[in-house]
Structures are given as C-alpha cells and as structure tokens.
C-alpha cells in the first residue's frame, strides 16, 4: 500500500532521485533545469487545456456548442490551433520598429514565466523559496506593462498605441488595489515568503483550516484581489485594451502567427500566475480546507483551486458586459482603493482582538468575526451609497427591439 505522503511527495522524490544520479558538479544545474522545464511544460499544457475549457464553457453559456470538430468533444482543438499559428505567415508592418516589435512578445512571456518561481504549487514544491516572495512576484510582474507598451508602440498603428495606453493606464491603476489587498495578508502572516504564508494557513482547529478567506478581511480582500486580478490580466469585463468592437484588438493588432500565439499564451499565463498568488495568499495554497481531506495530494489541491478560479474567470467573462474607460478608472480609484484600505484596517483590528480582549474561544471568536465584518461592511454601504447618489436606475427601455 502506498502511503498518502509518498503520493504527495512523488514529484519531489523523483527530482531528488534524478539529481542524486547526476555527477556532482552538474547537480545544481540539473536541479534548476528540471524545475524550470517542469514549470514551463505544466503551465503551457494548462494553457492548452484552458483555451478549450474556456471556449466550451463560453459556448455553453451562450447556448452553442463551442469547438467540437477536432477529436472527441473538440479536446484536440489546441493542437489544431498551434499548428495553424505556427504555419501562418509572420507579418511585420513596414513602418514597425523591427527590433522592439520582435522583442515585445518574448519579454512578455519571459517575465510572466519568471513570476512562477515563487508560487508554491505543492508541499515542498516551490522553485525558489525567497524571503520576499510576494514582493518578487509584484516586482517582476510590473515589467509586463513595459512589454505591452513595447508591443503597442513598435507597431506604429494608432489602434495598437491606443490599446497599449489603455492597458498601461488600467494595469497601473489596478496594481495598487492588487498590492494593497495582499498587504492585509502579509500583515497578519508577518512574512513576505509565499511558502510561509501557505504553511501558516495549513493548520487546523476543529477540523477547519486557517485559510485567510475564512476571516472577514480575508473574504473582502479575496474578492477585491480577484477583481483587481481580472483587470490586471485584461480579461472581460475589463478587456478595454483589446476591445474588439472599438480598437479591433489593441496592442497586438499587428502581430500574427506565432508572435500572436505568444501574446495569447502570456495572457493566460498571467491569469494562472495571479490566480496562483490569490490561492497562495487567501485560499491556503496547497492545503485542504478540512482536515479529513488532507490525504489528497497537495498539488491536486492547488491545481483544483486553480481550475475553480479559472472557471470563475470564464463565468464572469460570459456574464458581465465590458466597462467604459471612465467607469473603469472611477471604479479603481473611488471604490477599490478605499475598500482595500478598509480591509487593511479590519485586519489590524483582527490582530488586536485577541482572546484577552474578546473572551474565550467560541463566543470570543464570533464577536471578533462580527466586529471585523462590521468594520468592512459599514464603510462598504456608505461608500456605495455615496457613489450611487444622484443616479436613478430605471427600467431599461428597448427602443428598437420590442
């Protein structure tokens, strides 16, 4: 009988075995190569899976089939897409700045892959255990904006430049709520290391894990984080930078063939990376929510959560219409930013409402939860009322479609 622990650590054991059987001077190199290759292969495969998942899911939501020609239920569609994009002609506009135009997709994909280094995808399965892991993630992720600018500017096309400007404005604006909503977690955990944050959440009391999403500030922070993440990855309803009906395709309008596929890849990878960080910070990383399910391997938990968040992204895309530019900016600065600050305040109150203040466990815990929830809920209602003041919501009138 194989023990659950052995299954949990099977990939770690395998890597250690391979490294052990290589000559000593090459061991560090082999270890690094294995880690990098695994990340690239696994997440590129997940990208292929996600594209077909997304198209099928969207199809279901829109009462159609989605891709169903290649293979059973269309599951081999990504392979067909890959062949198509690889064999297409690579068109570069004559006026384009060739070097920058060539470099932009490479920089984008490279930078996004770099962020995976600090994601703990399973127990003992983090490529680099940095002491400043979360900071590293945001610092490296900030370079994606520059790659998008390179793509938009070098194409010498007004639509691509407009798309790049929109994308940068949006990403810069939503980066602040994204970082601030993770500050609450960092404050409570007392560390910037992604590994330690997950380990702190993988403890159980009464059979329930200490995930931060189970606290009021964690729940609010998680929702804010995911909204900001949607905007950060330029996904619907925040897909103005691409806005097919307005600026055709935004910053990658002048890209074709394999370079376009790279942009597509980077977009999905960014989504996985930021979802992975959300899982790490709020959803307990690789840990199980209840202690009696802890025998399920840690990496299965991580990827299960990732797929669940992916489904949420697809669901939102199938449901919510695109925002206008002014709505986007107002939402970021007038709603998201104050709410993240309130979340931080609530986390601070949570930290100081210890057992000594609110009393022993069952009742004290409830009081603590309610007080912190109130600290978020009251500003939320007030803010929403202030922002909605003077706006009358009426029954929609359809002028041409009665």
């Amino acid at each position, binding site marked *: 009988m194989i023990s659950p622990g052995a299954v949990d650590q099977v990939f770690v054991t395998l890597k250690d075995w391979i490294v052990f059987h290589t000559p000593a001077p090459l061991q560090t190199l082999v270890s690094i190569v294995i880690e990098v290759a695994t990340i690239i292969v696994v997440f590129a495969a997940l990208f292929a899976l996600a594209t077909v998942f997304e198209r099928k899911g969207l199809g279901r939501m829109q009462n159609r089939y989605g891709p169903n020609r290649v293979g059973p239920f269309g599951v081999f569609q990504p392979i067909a897409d890959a062949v198509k994009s690889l064999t297409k002609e690579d068109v570069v506009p004559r006026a384009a700045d060739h070097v920058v135009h060539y470099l932009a997709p490479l920089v984008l994909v490279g930078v996004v892959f770099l962020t995976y280094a600090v994601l703990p995808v399973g127990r003992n399965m983090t490529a680099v255990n940095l*002491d400043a892991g979360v*900071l590293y993630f945001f*610092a490296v992720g*900030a370079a994606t904006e520059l790659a998008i600018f390179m793509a938009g500017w070098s194409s010498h096309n007004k639509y691509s430049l407009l798309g790049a400007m929109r994308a940068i404005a949006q990403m810069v*604006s939503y980066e602040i709520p994204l970082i601030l909503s993770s500050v609450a977690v960092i404050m409570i955990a007392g*560390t910037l290391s992604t590994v330690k944050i997950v380990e702190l959440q993988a403890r159980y009391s009464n059979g329930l894990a200490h995930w931060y999403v189970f606290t009021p500030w964690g729940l609010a922070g998680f929702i804010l984080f995911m909204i900001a993440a949607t905007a950060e990855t330029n996904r619907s309803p925040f897909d103005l930078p691409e806005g097919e009906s307005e600026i055709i395709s935004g910053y990658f309008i002048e890209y074709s063939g394999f370079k376009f596929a790279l942009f597509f890849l980077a977009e999905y990878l960014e989504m996985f990376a930021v979802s992975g960080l959300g899982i790490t910070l709020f959803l307990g990383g690789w840990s199980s929510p209840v202690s009696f399910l802890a025998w399920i391997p840690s990496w299965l938990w991580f990827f299960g959560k990732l797929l669940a968040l992916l489904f949420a992204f697809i669901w939102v895309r199938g449901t919510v219409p695109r925002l206008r530019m002014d709505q986007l900016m107002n939402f970021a600065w007038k709603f998201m930013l104050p709410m993240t600050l309130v979340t931080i305040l609530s986390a601070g109150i949570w930290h100081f409402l210890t057992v000594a203040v609110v009393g022993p466990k069952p009742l004290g815990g409830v009081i603590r939860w309610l007080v912190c929830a109130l600290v978020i809920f009251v500003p939320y209602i007030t803010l929403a009322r202030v922002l909605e003041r003077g706006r009358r919501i009426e029954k929609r009138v359809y002028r041409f479609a009665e």
Partner: protein
Amino acid sequence: MTLPFLILAIMTLAGGVAAMTMRRLVHCALALVVSFAGLSALYLNLGAEFAGLAQLLVYVGAIAILIVFAILLTRGGEGEPEGAFSPAGIVGAVVALAVFAVLAWAVETSGVARAGVTVAAPQITMREIGFALMQRYVLPLEVIALMLTAAMIGAVILALREKRNDSAGDSGAAQKQGLRA
C-alpha cells in the same frame, strides 16, 4: 569581482550609455529600463534583496512607465534632430570623462578600496528590515510618506489641464501621472 557581477555591471553600463546616446526617445527609455533592471540585479547580487526588488518595482514598474508616457504626451517619439555626437555631445563626454577620472583616482587612492576585505554576505531577513523601518527609522518613514503625498498632489496640480489650453486627452494622463506617484 565575480563573473555575475561583471556581466551585470556591463549590462547596467551598456544600458546607461545607450539611454544617453540613442536618437529616438522611446529607445532611450527602453535602454534606461535595461540599466535599471541591471542595477536591481546588482543589488540582488550584493545581497540586498529588498532594495533590489523595490528598485525593480519602482523604477521598471513606475518610473519607466512615467517616462514613456511623458515621451508620448510631448510628441517626443520622433527623435531629436541631432544625436549625441554633436559638438555639445563631445564636450559633455569630455566633462564626464574628467569626472570619472577624478572619481576613479579618489577610489583608487583612498584607503577604503584596499582595506575592504571580502566579508561574508550579511544575512538580513525581511523581518529585520521591517522592524528597522518601524522602530529605528520610523520618523524618516513618516516624512517620506508625507513627501510622497505632497508630490502626488503637486504632480496632479502641475499636470492638470489649464482652462485656456484645450488640448484634448491631457487631463486623463495628468490624473494617471499624479496618482502613480
């Protein structure tokens, strides 16, 4: 002087030289980014993890974007009529070389360079930096916070569109400019 240090130093300096000599402003900005990224890697190489990542976050993520936005908003994308190899450029290069000569002479002759023995990299955790910022250096931290707020308000007011100038699209950029600070 290890090999990684040498590579990173060359990358930083090449980026800096390219940023100061290239003709198109956007290319200069991108070269500047290479230089900033090289510097942040140098900090990491020297064991200053937090400073290196902060450098990357602020310089590549914010200042480079600001510079690029400013270039586009001032129609500077077309490039300068003359490159760096004008008479003024040569004079500047000579002045810079003289400054470098003086600095190098100072570094070489001072006791600091020769006395500096190779010490083990200090093991600094994020926790220690956090405590230092919150205890010993809390006053400078608050002053910096105040200054950043003042700079943000100042930048917004400066870049706000004036009433008599009616160039469309500037106010949105101004807002972004200031709030990014």
